[in-house]
């Protein structure tokens, strides 16, 4: 058998080579299970390597060393609230119970964190940040070093196979280089295929309201796992809450990462009429919805020098200097000049900023009720010290944050709630975790946590 030949039978077949798939493969490998991970694209990474590299963990040694008071209970409360209590309590609870273990595992593997910051949906700083590709490569390296994990690139799963008698999933038909093959999986199949932000047909079906938003995602994020499980009768959850994320620069292509959040450091967001349109401390997904209702579906984050200095070099979504260097952050000596550069009405922008500064000084926003910089955290600041800055922003569907119904052990459930035997799912393909909205860092967090759980459940460990 040549090295490239695909195994005919394994213990666990993992479909999808992002963080969830690799965490599942690592765990299966550590348990001594013969594991095949297939990735449709020519390289691993999926949506993971496009992410900002944030992991939402709570009560970590890093937070403690920085004097940040956080806990699992606080994370649980935040997750439920951010999700509008529409998320599945049992799945959220499982994330909370297993997140410190995931943090520790990553640390042991060598994926340690040195930075933590506050981001969307968090009531305290808990976005543990590190280059996502580094984390993925570390996990993938350890998975292969178990000696039990093989990876095949450019290999797509096409259909799941099912035992006709008991309905159990027995493997999948796969395709590589125009050839088809069957892979049998004795212990089950883990779907880790991510979301479907690159599948216009599915977006049109589930999120027609997002037509005005940009799309981003790995080229492979076309919902393959969702479709294959759908064919077997899998249920869906959270599909109605697909939302774009505000803060993406209009120049970004589908695989670029030009998200920037000066709003969470104190900036305001205005529309093309130079008027504020939203409480800027809300989840960037809710701001995304508000942005889609503005003329041209476009907004401008406007800030000044002290807010600019609150940027966090090295954290992509908060590195204002890097975006200034790249020409995406616009600067001018006066608000008038800034308005001219953006093509906004200068008099209106001046009125908007002046009115907002009044709110900031009083600590009360009479127009939109903003009461903090980010999710009730941090005090409002005025925008008055030159030079001034702006970051033109649209809403982008980064990930779909919805999908298959699973139980807290990652068993895929059919539309009537019955488990589909030997079918498991983790990462961006599952629904039920986020509910109405998303907290920064939970996509990578849930990929790590539920990827591991999927392998353990498949192997009954």
């Amino acid at each position: 058998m040549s090295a490239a030949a695909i195994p005919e039978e394994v213990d666990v077949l993992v479909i999808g080579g992002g963080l969830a798939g690799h965490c599942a493969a690592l765990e299966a490998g550590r348990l001594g299970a013969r594991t095949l991970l297939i990735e449709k694209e020519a390289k691993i990474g999926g949506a993971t390597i496009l992410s900002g590299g944030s992991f939402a963990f709570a009560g970590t040694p890093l937070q403690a060393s920085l004097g940040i008071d956080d806990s699992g209970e606080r994370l649980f409360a935040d997750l439920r609230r951010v999700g509008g209590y529409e998320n599945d309590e049992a799945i959220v609870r499982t994330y909370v119970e297993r997140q410190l273990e995931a943090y520790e595992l990553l640390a042991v593997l060598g994926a340690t964190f040195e930075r933590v910051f506050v981001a969307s949906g968090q009531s305290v700083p808990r976005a543990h940040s590190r280059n996502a590709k580094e984390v993925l490569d570390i996990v993938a390296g350890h998975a292969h070093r178990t000696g039990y994990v093989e990876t095949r690139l450019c290999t797509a799963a096409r259909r799941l196979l099912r035992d006709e008698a008991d309905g159990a999933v027995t493997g999948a038909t796969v395709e590589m280089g125009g050839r088809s093959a069957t892979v049998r999986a004795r212990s089950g199949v883990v779907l880790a295929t991510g979301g479907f932000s690159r599948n216009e047909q599915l977006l049109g079906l589930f999120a027609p309201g997002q037509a005005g938003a940009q799309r981003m995602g790995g080229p492979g994020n076309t919902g393959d796992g969702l479709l294959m499980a759908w064919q077997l009768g899998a249920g869906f959850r959270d599909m109605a809450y697909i939302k774009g994320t505000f803060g993406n620069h209009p120049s970004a292509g589908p695989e670029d990462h030009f998200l920037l959040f000066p709003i969470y450091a104190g900036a305001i967001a205005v529309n093309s009429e130079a008027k504020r349109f939203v409480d800027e401390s809300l989840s960037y997904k809710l701001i995304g919805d508000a942005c889609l209702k503005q003329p041209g579906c476009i907004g401008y984050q406007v800030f000044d020098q002290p807010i600019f200095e609150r940027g966090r070099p090295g954290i992509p979504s908060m590195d204002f200097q890097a975006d200034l260097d790249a020409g995406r952050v616009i600067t001018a000596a006066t608000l008038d000049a800034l308005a001219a550069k953006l093509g906004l009405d200068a008099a209106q922008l001046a009125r908007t900023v002046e009115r907002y500064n009044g709110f900031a000084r009083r600590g009360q926003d009479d127009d939109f009720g903003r009461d903090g910089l980010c999710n009730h955290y941090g005090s409002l600041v005025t925008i008055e010290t030159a030079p001034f800055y702006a970051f033109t922003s649209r809403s982008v569907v980064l990930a779909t944050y919805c999908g298959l119904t699973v139980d807290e052990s990652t068993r895929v459930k059919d539309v009537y709630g019955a488990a589909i035997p030997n079918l498991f799912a983790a990462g961006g393909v599952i629904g039920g975790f986020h509910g109405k909205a998303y907290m920064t860092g939970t996509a990578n967090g849930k990929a790590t946590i539920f990827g591991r759980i999927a392998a353990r459940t498949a192997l009954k460990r």
Partner: protein
Amino acid sequence: MAFQAKHAQGQVIAAPTLAELAAKIGIDPVALAKTIDTYNTFVDQGKDLQFGRDGLSTHYGALARIDTAPFYAYPSKSVIVATYCGVSVDPQMRVRDVFGAIIPNLYAAGEVIGGLHGRAYMTGSSLGKASIFGRLAGRSAVGAVARNAAVSA
């Protein structure tokens, strides 16, 4: 369209003047008078400059002034009366799976199917599609019975 019957049941509210109508339904009489006035101007001009209404229903029927007492109001909310979406079928009403493959011996018709209405609904098309596609589904199933019988024989 049974306005008289709804009025008799008390659902259509009537008043001799617009101001009294506004008071009965609890909205600002000045704003209502202004709104009606503006709309009547549009009717006279034959052009609705605010929303572009150009007929009574889907470009059909000429706009009519609202100026002759008594005046009426019908409080209205939005209601989901049907879902107008559902399973994908082919023109023979054979149900298709998510990859477009026919699910053998499964047919669907009426409200459970998707694909006829698209974004919006035309009045009457629900009962129409029930009649038309119900028959088609029956024919397809009978065809399958005949084919199956032929295979067995």
